[in-house]
């Protein structure tokens, strides 16, 4: 049989978004032999996602700041000669940090001395009745659709949730020639005003936000603060959305009457959750930090986790925003170079302090936004019992509550009893809300815990993993003497 080849390298960086790509560039500059891997076809991550291959920007269109930053990063990665493995998914990290990937040509394995995990975030969508209807997509999904695919989510879209993506998506839709039925924001105007001091660090974004507000008003789009989606149902020709007022904790106000909107698409998102699949799989120590998005690997300021040779950086290490992610990635790379003996203590300290200063200002802004997008307890408490929480396995809130009442003490027990989080998404979509629901029974998020990481991190078929390994290759141990 052909044993899958395992190649050696100093450092594997998982994720080529702003944190991972910058980390790889910096690690290479420190003299490390680096491999940068990503499941997407090029660097940039979700925030600086490139246009699809074969697309080009129209001659007269001025590219967005994100497009400019993404293109610059991609050009720098190409020019640097950093070894890249794009279009490859990490499906396992084995003993001794062996990285198993699957790409278009099958499985490959790399054996690094250190791993830097920069896997970014996934979007949290708070479940509501009807959120599984085709045509209901995430806010981040709408962003990808608009910016990368240059496609509208619908002719008329309702935009709902929390955070800065709300206005960005609503305006993206208007600009692309679509209609916005309404914008429903769980936050109040006052919640937004409270972020002003940290927004002062980014006058460009403050200005952009104001422009977006004006454009929505001009287009006559209703913007309802402290409102959430009560339900979405499929009706002839589209979707009927009921919106309801919520209180400061995000819980629906029972006395308020619901407002009805018609649209053919809904984009809903309630913040970002750090992607911790890899560090959970490796059994690194994790901690719950609501302000930074939820469960994150317990790491020092430079991204060192509880495991030797395992580093985290960027939003996956705790949300601080894309602008801060690059410096964070470089900080982790410098720490790794020092730990591997490639950087002197003096050079390390100098670079660490410089990068830390560079990181502080954008991180302050990013964390203020993360605060706006933090999970709202009342919104979780208000999820109706029959609502599906785990989309993969159709597990409802009522089933989660019942399991808790029957004695499920943590999310892994909940998973074993109800299949919540056991489906192909590996709990990435439901884990945060399932954990919050269980926490209401067991006292805290810490007590409810987080899903144990399990391979495969991405679905792979047995045939792909086994390759040409056949029955004949199975070693048969000698039978024990009778």
């Amino acid at each position, binding site marked *: 049989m052909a044993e899958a080849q395992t190649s050696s390298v100093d450092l594997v960086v998982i994720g080529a978004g702003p944190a991972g790509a910058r980390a790889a560039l910096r690690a290479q500059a420190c003299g490390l032999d680096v491999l940068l891997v990503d*499941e*997407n*076809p090029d660097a940039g991550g*979700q925030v600086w996602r490139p*246009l*699809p*291959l*074969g*697309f*080009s*920007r*129209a001659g007269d*269109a001025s590219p967005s700041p994100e497009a400019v930053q993404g293109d610059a990063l991609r050009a720098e990665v190409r020019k640097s000669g950093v070894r890249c493995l794009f279009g490859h*998914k990490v499906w396992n990290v084995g003993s001794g940090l062996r990285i198993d990937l699957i790409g278009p040509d099958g499985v490959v394995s790399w054996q690094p001395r250190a791993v830097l995990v920069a896997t970014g975030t*996934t*979007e949290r969508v708070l479940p509501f009745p009807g959120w*599984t*209807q*085709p*045509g*209901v*997509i*995430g806010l*981040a*999904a709408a962003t*990808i*659709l*608009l910016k990368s*695919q*240059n*496609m*509208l*989510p*619908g*002719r008329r879209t309702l935009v709902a949730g929390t955070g800065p993506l709300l206005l960005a998506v609503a305006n993206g839709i208007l*600009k*692309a*020639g*679509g209609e916005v039925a309404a914008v429903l924001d769980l936050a109040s105007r006052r919640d937004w005003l409270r972020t002003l001091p940290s927004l002062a660090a980014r006058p460009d974004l403050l200005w952009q936000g104001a422009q977006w507000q004006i454009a929505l008003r001009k287009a006559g789009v209703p913007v309802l603060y402290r409102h959430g989606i009560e339900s979405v149902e499929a009706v002839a*020709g*589209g979707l009927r959305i009921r919106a309801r007022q919520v209180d400061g904790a995000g819980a629906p106000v029972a006395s308020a009457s619901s407002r009805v909107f018609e649209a*053919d698409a809904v984009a809903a998102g309630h913040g970002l959750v750090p992607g911790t699949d890899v560090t959970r799989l490796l059994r690194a120590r994790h901690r719950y930090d609501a302000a930074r998005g939820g469960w994150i690997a317990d790491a020092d300021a430079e991204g060192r986790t509880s495991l030797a040779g395992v580093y985290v950086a960027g939003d996956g290490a705790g949300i601080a925003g894309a602008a801060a992610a690059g410096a964070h990635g470089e900080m982790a790379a410098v720490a790794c170079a020092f730990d591997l003996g490639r950087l002197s203590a003096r050079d390390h300290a100098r670079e660490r302090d410089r990068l830390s200063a560079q990181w502080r200002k954008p991180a302050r802004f990013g964390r203020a936004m993360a605060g706006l997008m933090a999970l709202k307890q009342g919104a979780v408490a208000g999820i109706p019992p029959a609502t*599906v929480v785990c*989309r*993969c*396995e*159709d597990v409802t809130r009522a089933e989660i509550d019942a399991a808790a009442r029957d004695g499920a003490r943590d999310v892994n027990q909940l998973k074993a009893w109800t299949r919540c989080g056991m*489906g*192909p*998404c590996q709990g*990435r*979509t439901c884990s945060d809300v399932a954990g919050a629901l269980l926490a209401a029974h067991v006292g805290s998020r810490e007590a409810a815990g987080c899903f144990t990481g399990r391979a495969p991190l*991405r*679905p792979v*078929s047995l*045939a*792909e993993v086994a390759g040409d390994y056949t029955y004949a290759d199975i070693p048969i141990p000698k039978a024990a003497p009778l």
Partner: protein
Amino acid sequence: MTQSSSPATFSLRADQAVRRGPAVHFLADGVSVPAFEGESVAAALFASGWRELRRSPRDGAPRGMFCLMGSCQECLVWVGSRKLPSCQVPVAAGLEIETMAFREQRIG
């Protein structure tokens, strides 16, 4: 899987800022779908009015693309011998994909 009843008379494609790849067709469950090279299969199907990609395992409820970043696995389709999130599969001329229900029925 059948196409949604609402025909896509309004184009969801927004071409103000971009020149798309060449116009091509790909096959989904044996149906020819017009698209542009490089678009994700999920987005191209969605733009053609094809929103339902599969049924959920327990409730049999309709599901379609959701996260568009390869995380949620809602848009899984067969591409040859591999089950892939269609949001991560670029359209190319001659590409053939099958929804899970279609393949199940075909193979029996």
